[in-house]
């Protein structure tokens, strides 16, 4: 069965976007990415160390995966835009996961600056995937300025708290004109499955894989959960009801 994810005209067979940070070591990261089945993986853009330049981890990934650079940590639209432009030069990609942080402790998006930066980056020819609030209006504004997808948070980055407001995520999915990628807060496989069941087109996961006890196994679990959640979404869940409905036939009961 083919059911590809399409973002900005690019087709992906995997609906898992994987982060590359916080793994115990490089080999575990590579093995986990392999097990996750991800085709799109994120990277940050940082100043090189002037005291000892060495090869980049991305050297290992660049030819095997499509790299989605982020603007993680940026707190102003100006810095985020420059970071995106540096990423485009360094990685030869016009795709960017736009992050604009309004609070350094909560890592919560600054929607006002986010929409402004997204608008400017789209005008500069970028394919913009913004990390944003789980709020249908913010998501709509980002789609309106031309973002290729929206990436609402499930809960705080790295928190593992799952999807704090499933109703909001479901609303966003039902109204969004662009693909919805659940970003941030995934703790375990059931969270990823839930995101897909709510109607998300893909899930972005880093910490929940990288910081698990067995990242390679967790990557496989996330892959299976996302596939399962997607199938369940397409199949259509039964409505919830507040009374029992026997699954076995009512007639021909022994002794009746």
């Amino acid at each position, binding site marked *: 069965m083919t059911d590809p994810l399409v973002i900005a005209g690019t087709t992906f067979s995997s609906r898992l976007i994987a*982060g*590359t940070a916080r793994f115990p070591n490089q080999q575990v*990261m590579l093995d986990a990415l392999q097990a996750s089945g991800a085709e799109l993986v*994120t990277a940050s853009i*940082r100043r090189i160390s002037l005291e000892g330049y060495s090869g980049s981890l991305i050297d290992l990934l660049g030819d095997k995966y499509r790299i989605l650079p982020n603007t993680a940590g940026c707190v102003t639209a100006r810095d985020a835009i420059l970071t995106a432009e540096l990423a485009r030069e360094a990685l030869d990609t016009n795709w960017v996961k736009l992050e604009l942080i309004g609070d350094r402790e909560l890592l919560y998006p600054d929607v006002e600056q986010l929409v402004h930066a997204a608008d400017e980056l789209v005008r500069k020819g970028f394919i913009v995937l913004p990390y944003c609030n789980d709020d249908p209006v913010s998501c709509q504004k980002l789609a309106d300025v031309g973002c290729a997808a929206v990436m609402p948070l499930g809960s705080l980055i790295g928190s593992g708290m799952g999807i704090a407001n499933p109703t909001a995520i479901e609303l966003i999915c039902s109204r969004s004109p662009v693909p919805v990628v659940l970003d941030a807060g995934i703790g375990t496989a059931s969270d990823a499955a839930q995101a897909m069941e709510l109607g998300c087109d893909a899930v972005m996961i880093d910490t929940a894989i990288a910081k698990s006890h067995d990242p390679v196994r967790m990557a496989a679990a996330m892959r299976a959960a996302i596939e399962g959640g997607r199938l369940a979404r397409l199949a259509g869940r039964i409505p919830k009801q507040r009374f029992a409905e026997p699954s076995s036939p009512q007639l021909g009961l022994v002794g009746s």
Partner: protein
Amino acid sequence: MMHLKINGKEAEFAATTIAELLAEQGIDPKARFLAVAVNGAVVRRAEWLRASLAAGDSVEIVRPFQGG
């Protein structure tokens, strides 16, 4: 020697172009996945040999790292 700010640190440098500055820092200008900005504007790799630096310039030299 020229006073420059490189990745947030101010110092004196002999380099007069970006290519020379990278070499002075022990960075191979042909290394993949590098990017440079001067005073907030990206300088394309093709310009590194020619783009001259002026005293007081602020230079960012970046590359991709792990990220989420």
